[in-house]
């Protein structure tokens, strides 16, 4: 953890009034009911008559404590209260009152201790924080994302100033030295892309911020943009300067509206302060940014498809020429992911050396990972590249949920692969993950426990890519469909042993022959589950049995007589007439007649239908 508490940070923590209550306003906390929490806090400070200022912040990435608040009064340690009940206003009032009286016993943690005040442990001592290095996410949950002044107070835009004092080649050289690689998926060295674009002779060049975060299970870009949007904007301006661009585009998907709003606002504020426009900071560098709302298609994460979307078309195209040579409107264009650009700004603010303290030999710095699925503490964790999966999932995210056993982790979204629990000591970096059939992707890790079926997981992902394939090239359009159909057959208990070989063969041909990265990585979930979880496939094929009891056609439905109240809802909805029972008596499913459609389980108001 490198969150230093200097005088400037202190000022931001306590605010001008010396009493600040932080409330996270981000998509995730809004979903957890933070608006009611804010109302309760407003009422509480009014009725208690305390001079506190309500301060909007983004999200810390610790989703498992949502909604949280932080109370900071000069003289007392800033205390974080997790899982505040939005429906219990009197409790919220009590918390604030106790805090003001110096009783911090209900707090989850404090940002730092203050001599003579009894308080719980510091944030950095908590398990979910201990191993984190908050380099790029340092401001998340600390400052108001809609205030450029607060960003500047934490060193914001000093990176741009430094970059503009350097020659373009020097800026690129600095990024080369940092070993920064694209955080969006493929891990392409950022400087290489920039350099190629820089060398092109053209009066117009574009830099695009790729905010089309479409991987299910990954939301670090949303979190960064909602919590610290200026960092992304600053990174984009530096990128624009380095390659000699005139125009920048921020591309955000319509499904993430708050992210788009905050980025657009940040651009406007940067323009008002003279960080955008003509003669930026007194130099001869002219640059401006527009934000563009994508209409939502997974393939738009791929750079040529993203460019096509801005031009009002769809679908990816063959490379080369690379966008750095011929991109948007035929002009040299670079595309960088949100997190990559935020790293650029932070590197220029705090120096390459600070960044190079972390990472592996080939990749510098830290990466934000989203850990979701079957873990105790879901959230976003920023750790040095090269951290092991075990550290992230067990030490930071707290391991399996109560009563469950982790069997695998799915890394890298729909185009990633599943890594079994035996390999959890593997390092998270681009090369290592690829070696094990997964990819780093944007850094989404979905933890899979033994109640989930690996055949179903593979089927789910091929279904996803099938729907998202743009349809231009045959291997992806038809190949993925075949994979999906065969997996569907296996799930229904109609698989044959030869199918496994067919899956492997089709998968490999799709990877070799697809036009863009979407098809090129689409079979990963199938190939990796075949490799590590072949026994589950065999169980489905040979014994017609789904060990995780997920595949509907291979399970038996039963009614728990202890829970069933005999309401008859299932009996009326059963299409096969396979349920019997008298009103108000426990009902029964006749196994021979049952079609295994699962309708009874869906309709049962008491939740009495189970699977064996």
């Amino acid at each position: 953890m490198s969150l230093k508490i200097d005088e400037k940070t202190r000022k931001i923590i306590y605010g001008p009034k010396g009493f600040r209550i932080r409330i996270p306003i981000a998509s995730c906390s809004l979903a957890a009911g933070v608006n009611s929490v804010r109302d309760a806090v407003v009422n509480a400070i009014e009725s208690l008559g305390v001079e506190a200022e309500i301060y909007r912040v983004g999200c810390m990435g610790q989703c498992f404590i949502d909604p949280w608040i932080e109370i900071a009064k000069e003289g007392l340690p800033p205390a974080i209260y997790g899982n505040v009940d939005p429906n219990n206003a009197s409790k919220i009032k009590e918390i604030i009152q106790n805090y003001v009286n110096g009783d911090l016993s209900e707090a989850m943690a404090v940002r730092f201790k203050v001599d003579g005040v009894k308080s719980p442990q510091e944030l950095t001592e908590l398990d979910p924080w201990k191993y984190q290095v908050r380099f790029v996410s340092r401001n998340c949950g600390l400052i108001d994302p809609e205030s450029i002044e607060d960003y500047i107070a934490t060193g914001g835009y000093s990176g741009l100033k430094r970059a503009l004092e350097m020659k373009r080649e020097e800026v690129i050289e600095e990024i080369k030295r940092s070993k920064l690689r694209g955080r969006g998926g493929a891990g392409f060295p950022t400087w290489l892309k920039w350099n190629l674009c820089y060398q092109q002779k053209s009066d117009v060049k574009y830099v695009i911020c790729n905010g089309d975060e479409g991987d299910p299970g990954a939301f670090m870009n949303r979190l960064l943009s909602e919590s610290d949007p200026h960092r992304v904007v600053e990174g984009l301006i530096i990128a624009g300067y380095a390659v000699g661009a005139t125009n920048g585009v921020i591309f955000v998907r319509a499904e993430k509206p708050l992210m788009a709003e905050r980025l657009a606002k940040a651009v406007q504020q940067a323009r008002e302060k003279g960080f955008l426009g003509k003669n930026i900071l007194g130099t001869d560098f002219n640059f401006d940014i527009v934000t563009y709302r994508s209409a939502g298609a997974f393939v738009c994460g791929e750079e040529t498809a993203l460019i096509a979307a801005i031009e009002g078309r769809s679908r990816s195209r063959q490379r080369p020429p690379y966008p750095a040579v011929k991109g948007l409107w035929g002009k040299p264009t670079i595309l960088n992911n949100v997190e990559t650009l935020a790293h650029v700004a932070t590197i220029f603010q705090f120096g390459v050396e600070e960044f190079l303290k972390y990472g592996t030999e080939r990749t510098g710095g830290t990466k934000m990972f989203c850990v979701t699925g079957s873990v105790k503490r879901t959230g976003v964790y920023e750790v040095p590249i090269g951290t092991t999966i075990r550290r992230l999932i067990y030490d930071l995210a707290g391991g399996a949920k109560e009563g469950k056993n982790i069997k695998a982790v799915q890394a890298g979204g729909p185009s990633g692969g599943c890594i079994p629990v035996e390999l959890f000591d593997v390092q998270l970096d681009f090369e290592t993950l690829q070696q094990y059939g997964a990819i780093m992707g944007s850094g989404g890790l979905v933890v899979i426990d033994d109640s989930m079926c690996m055949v179903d997981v593979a089927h789910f992902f091929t279904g996803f890519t099938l729907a998202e394939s743009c349809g231009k090239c045959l291997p992806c359009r038809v190949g993925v469909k075949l994979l999906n159909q065969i997996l569907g057959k296996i799930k229904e208990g109609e698989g044959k042993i030869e199918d496994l070989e067919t899956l492997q063969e089709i998968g490999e041909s799709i990877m070799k022959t697809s036009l863009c990265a979407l098809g090129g990585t689409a079979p990963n979930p199938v190939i990796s589950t075949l490799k590590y979880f072949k026994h589950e496939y065999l169980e489905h094929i040979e014994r017609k049995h789904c060990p995780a009891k997920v595949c509907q056609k291979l399970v038996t439905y039963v009614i728990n007589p202890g829970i069933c109240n005999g309401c008859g809802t299932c009996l009326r909805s059963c299409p096969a007439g396979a349920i019997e029972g008298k009103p108000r008596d426990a009902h029964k499913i006749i196994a021979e007649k049952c079609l295994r459609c699962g309708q009874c389980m869906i309709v049962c108001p008491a939740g009495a239908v189970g699977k064996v």
Partner: protein
Amino acid sequence: MECEFERSRERLDDDTFVSELVKKYGKDRSMLIPMLQEVMLRYHYLPRDILETLSEKIEVPIAEIINVATFYHQFRLEPVGRYIVSICFGTACYLLGSAIVYEAMRDAMGLKGDKHTTDDLAITIEPARCFGCCSLAPVAMVTSADGKERYVHGKLTPSEGRKLVRKYRAQALKEM
């Protein structure tokens, strides 16, 4: 029905609307997506006749427009309900049972087969891609058709899902 009436009232200046759209963005092929987004804002779906008028005015074949309209998730070609309930089918939500919540909601609203919207145009229930709220899986996002209201509900169970859609339908019927 009242909403039908409103639709017909709006229809009166459909042509003016399209003309203004073309004036704002120009006869620019590359501005097609923002133009379609504006049509969505006004009608909450892409009515065929509007697309045809647009096609004539910007001189882009209707097939091209339909190509773009069907490619992106944001666009829809059918009318929607007062509230749109989108159930996340992202990885985390799916693995934690969003499919069964989705089926329970559809069952509660009597939606079968290809039908996603109730006949009274109160509720549309549809699967969606990730909202980035994976930590609250399974998640449903509820938006009003005009996009002005937005609510996210997390950690849903099938019975909570049922209650949720019933609540929004009642609210929709009150407002319509």
